[in-house]
């Protein structure tokens, strides 16, 4: 009986400890997804989207100092970046370029141009900024040649403290990346 009381007390103690709240952020474009295009000039699609391993998880990443990073446990993306970035960037580049950019979810093989994107860095920094380092290449599949090959490094200051502001800064940086990719089509 004495052991039973001890176990009950132990569980009761465990249950009284506080449980952290999980914050999830959905990366979606704010542009309109309703459009209609007749006779598109060239069929362009997003090809390979790869992200660096340290941001391939769900937790948002914060660089503390001297290249030391901490992955947030309570602040996470609602879906992996390798999935959400494809849709997000396709929508943003479409809005910038004024043409449909297919996100390659339907398995088309008749693309005339393909955009391959690699995200090397996407995290918050210790000095209150969001940082994006990316690389992309535009391929002409008909001529089997490279149309453009570019790199992108930019930072965006947080508007306020907190992960919500970090996510907003990330979106601003991704919008700028979309504009830069659109200019090379």
């Amino acid at each position, binding site marked *: 009986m004495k052991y039973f009381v001890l176990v009950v007390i132990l569980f009761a103690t465990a249950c009284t*400890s506080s449980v*952290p709240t999980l914050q999830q952020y959905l990366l979606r474009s704010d542009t309109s997804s309703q459009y209609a295009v007749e006779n598109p000039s060239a069929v362009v*699609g997003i*090809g*390979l989207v790869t992200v660096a*391993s340290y941001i*391939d*998880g769900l937790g948002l990443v*914060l660089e*503390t100092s001297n290249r030391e990073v*901490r992955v*947030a*446990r*309570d*602040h996470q993306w609602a879906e*992996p970046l*390798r*999935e959400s970035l494809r849709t997000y960037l396709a929508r943003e580049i479409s809005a910038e370029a004024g043409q449909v950019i297919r996100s*390659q*979810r*339907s*398995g*088309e*093989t008749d*693309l005339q141009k*393909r955009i391959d994107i690699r995200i090397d860095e996407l995290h*918050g920094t210790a*000095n*209150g*900024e969001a940082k994006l380092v990316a690389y992309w290449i535009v391929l002409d599949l008909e001529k089997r040649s490279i149309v453009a090959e570019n790199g992108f490094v930019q930072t965006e*200051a*947080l*508007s*306020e*403290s*907190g*992960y919500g*502001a*970090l996510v907003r800064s990330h979106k601003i940086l991704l919008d700028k990346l979309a504009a830069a990719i659109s200019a090379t089509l």
Partner: protein
Amino acid sequence: MSDMKPSVSSGRKFSAIWILPLVTLIVGVSIVFNSIMTEGPTITVNFDTANGLEVGKTKVRLLNVDIGLVEEVALKKDMSGVTATIKLEREAQSLLREDTRFWVVRARVGAGGVSGLGTILGGGYIEMAPGIGPEGMRAFVGLEEPPLTPLDAPGLRLSLFSQRAGSITTGDAVLYRGYKVGRVESLVFDTEKKLARYDIFIDAPFHELVGSATRFWDASGISLKASAEGFEVHTGSLDTILLGGVAFASPPGLSAGDQVQNGEEFQLYKSYDSILKNPYRHGMYYVVSFQQSIRGLVSGAPVEYRGIKVGRVERILMKELTMQGMTAAGSAIPILIYIEPGRMSLPDSLDSISAFKQIVESGIENGLRATLQTGNLLTGKQLISFDFFPDEVPAELGTFEQYTLIPSVETGVGRLENQVRVFMDTLNALPLETIVVEANTVLGDVDTAVVSLTATLNSVNRLLDNNDSKALPGDLVATLAELRSALAGLTPESKIYQSLGASVGSLNSTLESLDDLLRKLSIKPNTLLFPATPEPDLIPEVRTR
């Protein structure tokens, strides 16, 4: 007593009776002297006939002023004409020059019109045209026809030579672009050159239109040319259609050339078209010789440089070759050619000829050779062509008679014949007998090999005739199509590739999480039962400025 002395006179006294003869003598001498001093010269003029000449009646006129009278008309000793003795006024003495001309003016009806009608009633007279040569002439040859142009008229006198005397006669017009600028003064046959010579006069200032490159042609009659574009008619003025005439111009693309002087000689072409065929005056002669047959090469055949006509074949110098004597091996046949530098856009002048000679000389060093080419396969006509053959044996310019000899090479059938002959000589020199024996041995081995090969091929044929073998290509095509389809589904753009990539990504993420868990368990094995209190997430801080 008176002295009676006889009176002695020293001689006879001058009788008064002598005064009259003396005066008469003085008067006579003065008359004779006056007559001598005022008398004009007496000249003789030869004419073919005495038509229109009357002693004591026929006058000599200059610009319708009487300056003399015919005193005597006598037959020449050889009966070839008459000699008129004419007494001229003293003032006319200075007009008697070497080239002073006389002719009888009488009524004439000719190509140039009707003249001298006034002489029908008043009788004929002799017209004199003063010359400009040295004075002192007393014997002249009269003209049968009145001269058309005064000697001192400003203009240009030229001589035109033609192979035959056409319809052009004295008095016909000389035209420049249809406008009359002169006339034909005379037509004679030059026995030395064996050519008809026309002396023409071109009035000033039109004589400046004539240059060294000017060409003259017979503009008489009407030129009618029928072609696919219809009929084309070329005519001169009405005078030239009816009476004939001479026209001149510079050939198209050529300037008039240098200024010409009186008396220069030109060729009279029979038509304007013949000028277009031979528009150049200056050229040079060369000789080329060929060892091969020259059948089909005739005078007038073109001489070309890479297809561009630069001259013509003048003649084959067989006579000169015969004079030199043919060798037993057979000498090369020399051919005289005429090359016109003007055809190569060089100026049609003597300077171009010397320049062209240097071009030929340097060209020979670089392989320029003459060849005999077939111009027309149907007729077999041949032409001489120049081209560069840098691989040929070096050669130099030679001489044949007074001409420069350009080295030649054999081409075409002749060259082929030589090559075949060399080939046959080489072939004859081969040890064919030995080769044939060895070849027979080899062929025996080959027969054996062929038998084996035939057996093998039969086996292969049987294998190919098998239905299973025939089905193989179809199956192979179908398999390749399926393989292509399958590979297409695995491209980076394919749905499978995308899904597979996502799945692998998720698997990687899971494995990394598992790796993280394992790392924690290795550090603290009771983590699962007693989890460490996690540190709260760092909050990104806004930068404070």
